[in-house]
């Protein structure tokens, strides 16, 4: 993995000024993604993951406002790009599979003509060439090319999601953002497609920002990952290391809360049952009830990430009782 980042997000802050709800959706978030790196972003529902992705894609619209920070793509200031520059950059340099993928296809065009359009406008292919490239891409995501002639409503939820994955891959972008790309896929197809994406990623060397709530999938696929909570990053490290020994209580809860696939049925308590009263956008930490005693003196505001070991970051207050890590 190369050390020069393809993407650098520094102290990003995004606020929504709705009529009725003011939300600081992303609060002083920093991370970077290396060339050829798969970077995972996990976190609870509503914590700001899609907002981060939309900020990178420059797709945030009123009432959203980037009120602080920088985003650099290969050194270029992404937030300063305008007009034509921005258009060329989107899709060709950075492509995104939206969380709303199932709903983001044009309902009155067949899958085939939507795919053909991408190749004819961006790559100048002939319709015939474009069609055969489209068929190839559909096969890649396990869809029978006869579906080129189907309209979106004629496909199942998972097939639509796969068609969108195929389209995002079409132009071989340098950075691929996947926002919950597999929510409608069964695990067999999911594994197959994720393996295809990893293979392509190894071949072509693109980078990936992978957003999912599925920690197991994330750990299997990502090199490094970060966990987000209430608009802030609370932990960032090598994916397998974090999985093996999570440091932040919230990360721990994400790892441990799975219902098991073997053994007796045990009743689990979701955080929403008791600990967390709100939707997790308060900006302050709604997690403190579950904190271990040595962090109980925290104010409830999530602190900045601190590097506690090389490459290992966690948002923790200096501890009163120090074990292993320096305060």
């Amino acid at each position: 993995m190369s050390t020069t980042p393809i993407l650098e997000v520094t102290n990003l802050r995004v606020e929504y000024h709705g009529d009725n709800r003011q939300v600081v959706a992303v609060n002083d978030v920093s991370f970077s993604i290396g060339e050829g790196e798969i970077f995972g972003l996990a976190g609870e529902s509503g914590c700001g993951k899609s907002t981060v992705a939309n900020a990178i894609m420059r797709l945030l619209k009123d009432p959203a406002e980037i009120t602080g920070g920088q985003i650099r793509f290969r050194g270029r200031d992404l937030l300063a790009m305008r007009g034509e520059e921005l258009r060329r950059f989107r899709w060709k340099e950075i492509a995104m599979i939206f969380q709303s993928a199932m709903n983001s296809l044009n309902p009155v065009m067949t899958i085939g003509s939507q795919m053909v359009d991408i190749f004819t406008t961006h790559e100048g292919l002939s319709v015939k060439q474009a069609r055969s490239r489209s068929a190839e891409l559909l096969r890649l995501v396990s869809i029978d090319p006869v579906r080129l002639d189907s309209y979106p409503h004629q496909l199942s939820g998972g097939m639509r999601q796969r068609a969108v994955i195929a389209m995002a891959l079409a132009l071989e972008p340098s950075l691929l953002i996947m926002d919950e790309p597999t929510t409608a896929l069964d695990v067999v197809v999911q594994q197959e497609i994720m393996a295809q994406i990893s293979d392509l990623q190894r071949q072509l060397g693109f980078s990936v920002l992978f957003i999912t709530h599925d920690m197991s999938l994330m750990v299997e696929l990502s090199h490094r990952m970060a966990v987000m909570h209430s608009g802030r990053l609370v932990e960032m490290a090598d994916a397998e290391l974090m999985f093996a020994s999570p440091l932040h209580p919230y990360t721990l809860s994400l790892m441990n809360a799975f219902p098991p696939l073997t053994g007796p049925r045990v009743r689990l308590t979701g955080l929403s049952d008791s600990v967390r009263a709100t939707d997790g956008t308060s900006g302050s930490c709604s997690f403190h009830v579950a904190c271990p005693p040595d962090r109980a003196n925290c104010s409830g505001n999530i602190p900045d990430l601190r590097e506690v070991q090389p490459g290992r970051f966690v948002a923790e207050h200096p501890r009163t009782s120090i074990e292993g890590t320096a305060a």
Partner: protein
Amino acid sequence: MTTDTGQRRPSTAPIDDVSVRVRGLTKDFPLGGLFSRRSMRAVDNVDFDIPRGTIVALVGESGSGKSTVARALARLERPTAGSIVVGGRDVLKTEKSAASRRYRGTVQMVFQDPFGSLNPAHRVEHFLERPLRIHGKARSRQEVRRRSAELMRTVGLTEDMLDSYPHELSGGQRQRVSIARALAVDPEIILADEPTSMLDVSVRIGILNLMARLRDERGISMLFITHDLASARYVADTTLVMFAGALVEGGESLELMKNPSHPYTQLLLSAVPDPARTVRYDPHQRALLRRAVLAPTACPWQGPDCSATVPVRHTIGPDHWVRCHLYAPQVSAAANPLLTDSDAQPDLDSAPDLDVAPAPTRKATR
């Protein structure tokens, strides 16, 4: 949590104990453009019951017809054939053209796509207010607001979000609004199509516990479509497995996941992501295997080909059945080495690297 689903076989249960009875449900869709004559069978002769006050999970392949089954039950799709009996009434006969209000008050659906199913022009409150008023659950302005706020809290959202538009909500928040909307009319039956797919695990457990509570305290029956087998096992009394338009296996959830028997069920369970997996799967092998299972003549389990004769249900446990010729009682030992030699591997070039033993673990009974 109760693990009891009742030992009743679906086909023999008295109709009074059954909320939904589906028989022979079949749906054909035209394939291709407007003038195409080709069609495809999305749902093929599906039979199942949802016993009163139970949760039945429907899992299976993407594109196998799960949403179509739910949409047919919600009367959004007209089946090509089959019957749907709800509350003892054969609804396709008694309410021929469209579902009555009473039906819509009884059966509610949570749609798979939270981005496509909430009208962007309305605030969240509208989605709750409408059903509350239409079905007479709340009348005055204040009562509507109070009930709506309560519904929001039930799904882990805050009251101030009632005034938000769908585009102002995150994916998981919209999903929970859809759940709240279905709960608003106090239905007896909920058809939930991937209701928790965009929720992180802690919020998801909260929703699953809510589903269990609705079942246990209010006797609500549910069809729960999910790709998350752990969720199905956690909350569903019975799990049904769908593959290529047909139900291929069904049983009490714990039993089914302990002894997955149909080739597809085994494949499915073996693919559950697990970073702690010791034997790393080879995805290409799995892809081959999946294609092989799809093509009956190449089925790696080497039973008599199921494209030649459609397998019938074979009972393999007190509350567990499977549709695969391997479990047919008349299969001779010679024709099926797997039944006599449990160490034998299916004769496939890319031998399945399954964490779940590919061979049936026991002989078919009966």
